[in-house]
């Protein structure tokens, strides 16, 4: 071969061993991990203390007392109840709506694609800002939605300001923001389903409603499960929408976990109680996220197999 070979006789030894290199590359990720774990462990420590920022002198370990007190604490039960109500209401409604819209948009037409892209816009709106938008639309003075309600004869609907409609209002905003999330996930799932079972069913003359319950729904289940668990995880710790809309009010109507913990920490400076609340929330999310991650890994494997 005419191209002169230029292999150096003194071969370069590697500076960094191949075993060490991956550790070096992932060191920053490890640091972030530590940056998460240290405050996490600190939170556990705080939760076992009597600790108010306003009374540093009275700070002491009280072990499980913060948790024990929850048993008889009606505020705590209210928080748990409201959080669960919020989570299941939003996820349930969004699931039904998202699935409906996904089915509506299933066919790949120009119009359907345009609509599905349009629906991304609420999802990409910051939830806190979305809450402000709805606040403007439900303003008692000039809110357009109030005006629409007067047209159908409802005069004094007070939206987030009234305990009876506050939950409805924040759930509505949540639906507006997050239904598209479930929709696009299920739409992607629907469009990736194999066509043969449907063709076979159509040939056999299976009615469409039966096709839906016997073929579509079972095949879509992993997607529905993943989307629902994902949303449940976020919804049970919703903060942005509720805080921006009503700050947990009126009264304690919307005191979900994170809002309650936030106010505990910054208003009543009760670090111990706040940390204990968050740890209970963490335990709930940890439980859900374990199921979720298993599901998610399975879907991920499948998606990567298709590629």
């Amino acid at each position, binding site marked *: 071969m005419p191209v002169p070979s230029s292999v150096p006789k003194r071969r370069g030894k590697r500076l960094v061993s191949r075993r060490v290199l991956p550790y070096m590359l992932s060191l*920053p990720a490890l640091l*972030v991990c530590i940056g998460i774990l240290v405050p996490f462990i600190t939170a556990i420590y705080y939760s076992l203390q009597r600790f108010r920022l306003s009374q540093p002198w009275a700070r002491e370990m009280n072990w499980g007392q913060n948790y024990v007190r929850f048993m008889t604490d009606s505020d705590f039960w209210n928080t748990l109840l409201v959080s669960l109500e919020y989570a299941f209401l939003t996820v349930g409604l969004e699931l039904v709506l998202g699935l409906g819209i996904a089915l509506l948009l299933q066919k790949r037409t120009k119009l359907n694609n345009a609509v599905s892209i349009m629906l991304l*816009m609420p999802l*990409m709106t910051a939830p806190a800002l979305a809450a*402000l938008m709805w606040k403007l639309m439900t303003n008692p003075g000039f809110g357009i939605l109030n005006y629409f309600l007067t047209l159908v004869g409802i005069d004094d609907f007070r939206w987030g300001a009234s305990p009876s409609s506050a939950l409805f209002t924040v759930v509505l905003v949540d639906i507006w923001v997050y239904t598209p999330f479930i929709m696009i996930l299920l739409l992607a799932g629907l469009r990736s389903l194999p066509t043969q079972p449907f063709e076979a069913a159509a040939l056999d003359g299976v009615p469409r409603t039966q096709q839906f319950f016997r073929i579509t729904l079972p095949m879509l289940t992993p997607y529905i499960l993943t989307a629902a668990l994902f949303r449940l995880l976020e919804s049970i710790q919703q903060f942005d929408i509720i805080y921006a809309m009503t700050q947990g009010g009126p009264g304690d109507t919307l005191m979900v976990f994170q809002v309650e913990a936030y106010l505990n920490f910054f208003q009543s400076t009760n670090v111990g109680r706040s940390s204990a609340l*968050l740890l209970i929330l963490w335990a709930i999310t940890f439980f859900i*996220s374990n199921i979720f991650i298993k599901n998610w890994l399975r*879907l991920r494997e499948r998606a990567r197999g298709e590629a």
Partner: protein
Amino acid sequence: MEYQSKLETVLRGIALLLVVVFFMFPIFWIFLMSLQTNETILRVPPSINFEPTLSNYRALITGKLETSAASLEINFLRNLWNSVFLSVASVALALLLGVPAAYAFARHKFKGSEDIAFTLLSFRFAPPLLVLLPLSLYFQKMGLADTYLGLIWVYQLICLPLILWIVRGYFEDISPDIEYAYRVAGHSWFSTFRKIALPLAGPGIAAAGLLAFIFAWNNFIFALVLASADKQPVTVGALAFITASGIQYGQIAAAIVMSIAPTLALALYAQKYLVEGLSLGAVKG
């Protein structure tokens, strides 16, 4: 599916219309409000008949808020700048740290790699305040409270897992043989990473970066806990602005429009990757 009755077509049409109206109307209406003066906003009944004006935007940009009582100083542009700076810097840092780590996780199954990856993932779903509240106390001791550096560090909680998990999938899709071929041809691992792995995972890195940017921009709780007024991004700033400006609804609407426009634009631009990114790679769009 081929045989659609007329009735069904009509019903589908109506349903589609309702969907579009429900999801688009708020954005449309806030946009209209942003072009109106308080006078036309407060009209009863409301009407879309008005003389559009850019005065709200002008007020936000000049920072002079003219109320009936007095001229008020506001600093919404400062919030906007904070949003841009915090999001860009956080994503840049997350890419700088996350892409090499994603590469290491994809290529070398080493002891503890899965543990790190899953810790990051599982805390992606943990309540942010759980980490944030103790961190705010630490930050006060370390002098990181209310600094850009502290905020960017905290933003890694959302940006890093996203980038790590999406980009890792893209790296795993590259056949190791392709990289071996380049190594054997006489190139160092670093130039192989640069010339082979990075370009081939390019689209995934771009998508992950864009999504991380959107999530960082939309984040509310981090800055609410950790930043004071002059470091706050638009999400927190807009809330404070409402309290401060009272009844200047046109300007509030304009502020909201300016705050959500960047992420909406990016989302439309990157919609191809959104499905995959939002599901952390579990679903291909």
